[in-house]
């Protein structure tokens, strides 16, 4: 039976997933900077803030300040303690406000959460979720706009997921929290206010599975997070030119759904991957390498990567717009393939 659906934003979908996860498992706790009331004590109006964008609003009222914990601005303590708590029986959801801040708390993720299970010969598990904002487009400049998921996706032992809208955000977050491995859950800023039909109640979107966001036959556009929206807009424009584009939403960057990428390539014979991160050592390069390595026989044209340039994210609106992948740049890449 189909679930009832209603239109809510990605931010609301994430909030709903957190409510469901905390309701269904008493070991789930939240910790982060201002995730509760912005430091208000129990009995005071603890419900006001719910994080810098209000994503966790209402949770402290529902579950209390023991389980929804405001932390100091002290990322290594909050992420490190979350790893230690996960290792010993809790199922923490830590909020790293912006993924750019990973530089001050990388060790607990890189050398602890990711490796403890392996180093201990499989005799430990670290069911940790780190929610973190990613991406540019809000004029937040070089230290609050990066898409550093390539970094976490490259670390064995971590999983990294990135939804492209509210429906997947809710299901992926529930799957991430219930996963027994550490998962980095990216929240692209550009989709937080995006509204879509979202099922009510409890459901999961499996980690490691891409989804075909639009069927097509002439060219594959592969995106992740906000660039899925870009790919869909480009596909609309291509349709007007008589080109049928398929859009693949990766959803999970580690593990990467290699079979889904190879399947869409086999179907269309040409592929453009769109990633708002920088070009070196990234997801777009991984996808391109995969196509050449395992999909060579399917290729009718080179694989095109549409990414940000090898530069920090600029502040000025005019520069930031030029920095980010755009529909015209996707269309240009498709034209370079000799299609459209």
């Amino acid at each position, binding site marked *: 039976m189909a679930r009832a659906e209603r239109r809510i934003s990605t931010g609301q979908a994430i909030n709903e997933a957190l409510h469901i996860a905390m309701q269904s498992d008493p070991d789930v706790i939240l910790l982060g900077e201002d995730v509760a009331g912005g430091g208000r004590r129990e009995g005071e109006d603890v419900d006001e803030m719910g994080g810098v964008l209000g994503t966790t609003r209402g949770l402290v009222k529902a579950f209390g300040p023991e389980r929804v914990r405001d*932390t100091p601005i002290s990322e290594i303590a909050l992420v*490190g303690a979350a790893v230690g708590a996960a290792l010993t029986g809790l199922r923490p959801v830590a909020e790293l406000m912006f993924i750019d801040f990973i530089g001050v708390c990388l060790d607990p993720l890189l050398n602890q959460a990711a490796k403890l299970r392996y180093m201990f010969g499989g005799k430990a*598990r670290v069911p940790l979720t780190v929610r973190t904002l990613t991406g540019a487009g809000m004029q937040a400049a070089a230290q609050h706009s990066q898409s550093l998921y390539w970094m976490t996706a490259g670390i064995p032992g971590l999983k990294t997921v990135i939804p492209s809208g509210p429906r997947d955000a809710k299901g992926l977050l529930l799957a991430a929290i219930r996963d027994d*491995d550490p998962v980095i859950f990216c929240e692209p800023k550009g989709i937080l206010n995006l509204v879509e039909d979202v099922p009510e109640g409890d459901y999961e979107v499996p980690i490691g599975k891409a989804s075909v966001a639009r069927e097509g036959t002439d060219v594959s556009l592969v995106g992740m997070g906000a660039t899925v929206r870009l790919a869909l807009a480009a596909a609309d424009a291509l349709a007007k030119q008589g080109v049928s584009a398929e859009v693949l939403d990766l959803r999970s960057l580690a593990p990467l759904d290699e079979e889904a990428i190879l399947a869409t390539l086999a179907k269309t014979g040409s592929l453009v991957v769109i990633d708002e991160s920088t070009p070196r050592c990234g997801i777009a390069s991984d996808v391109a390498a995969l196509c050449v390595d395992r999909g060579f026989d399917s290729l009718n044209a080179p694989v095109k990567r549409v990414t940000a340039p090898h530069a920090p994210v600029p502040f000025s609106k005019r520069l930031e717009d030029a920095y980010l992948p755009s529909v015209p740049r996707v269309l240009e890449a498709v034209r370079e393939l000799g299609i459209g």
Partner: protein
Amino acid sequence: MQLERTTLLDAYRRMRRIRVFEEKLNELVTAGKLGGFLHLYVGEEAVAVGVCLQLGDGDFVASTHRGHGHCIAKGVDLGGMMAELYGRATGLCKGKGGSMHIADMHKGMLGANGIVGAGIPLATGAALTAKLKKTGGVSVAFFGDGASNQGQFHESLNLAAIWQLPALYVVENNGFGEFTPTDFVVPVKDIATRAASYAMRSEIADGMDFFDVFEKAGKAIEHARSGSGPVLLECKTYRFKGHYVGDSLRYRSKEEAERWIQTRDPIARFESRVREARLLEADDLRRVDREVDEEIAAAVAAAEAAPFPDVSEVTTDVYVGEA
């Protein structure tokens, strides 16, 4: 403080196990039989044993690169440890961790750690688990004087203090961070005073005296366990063997080391104290010595006879679901 005879024998046995285990490793590495980086705990036995003797399996310990002593004191199996150091399939971590990552979750041993200071937030998180799950457990982070300069130390103490976590932070001040003397890189005379920044209770113990560590750690553990908040316990100690096996020790004088070894050896001091007070007899101690020697010889023999892990193990245990 009056300790039961069984407690004293247990303390002596654990300290002897650490000493003989580490001396054996020194021998094996020097003979080229063991690989990897090894940091020995010789000289610091009273610290690990003085603290861990008062912990149960439900209490957590996060350790350091110099972690064998904490493991042994916490009751981790010697055979499993030795096999791990030999990189065998029967090792505690199936040969995947080695010296710097020995762990035993069943014993509450959250692992040695190759990153200086990294065990401190892990122990802090484990203390949060104990508090929220109301297990009555405490969580202990062992770390060195060097780690007390890391941000992880300061951020974790701050967090533990504001949340009043059942945590004990044991700084083993052995006078050197790698090759650099502590007073060259730490501006305060006593690291314990750093607790004042976090309104945290602190204590200083003679880390070469089992009885002093036992007494002060006992009070600190009781304080943390009762919900009164975390404690920073500084134990002044000394590394008899240097930073790692193969350390040339050119940065410290032979006289200084000899003075510590000859006059402050925690095991020798323990023995004179219990014998002078007629708490234990020489026969009791020599019997433990023989048993420990046999135990370690058996651990070495078993490890050498054990199989190496299958190469298919390279890619297992990365994920729970093996994605």
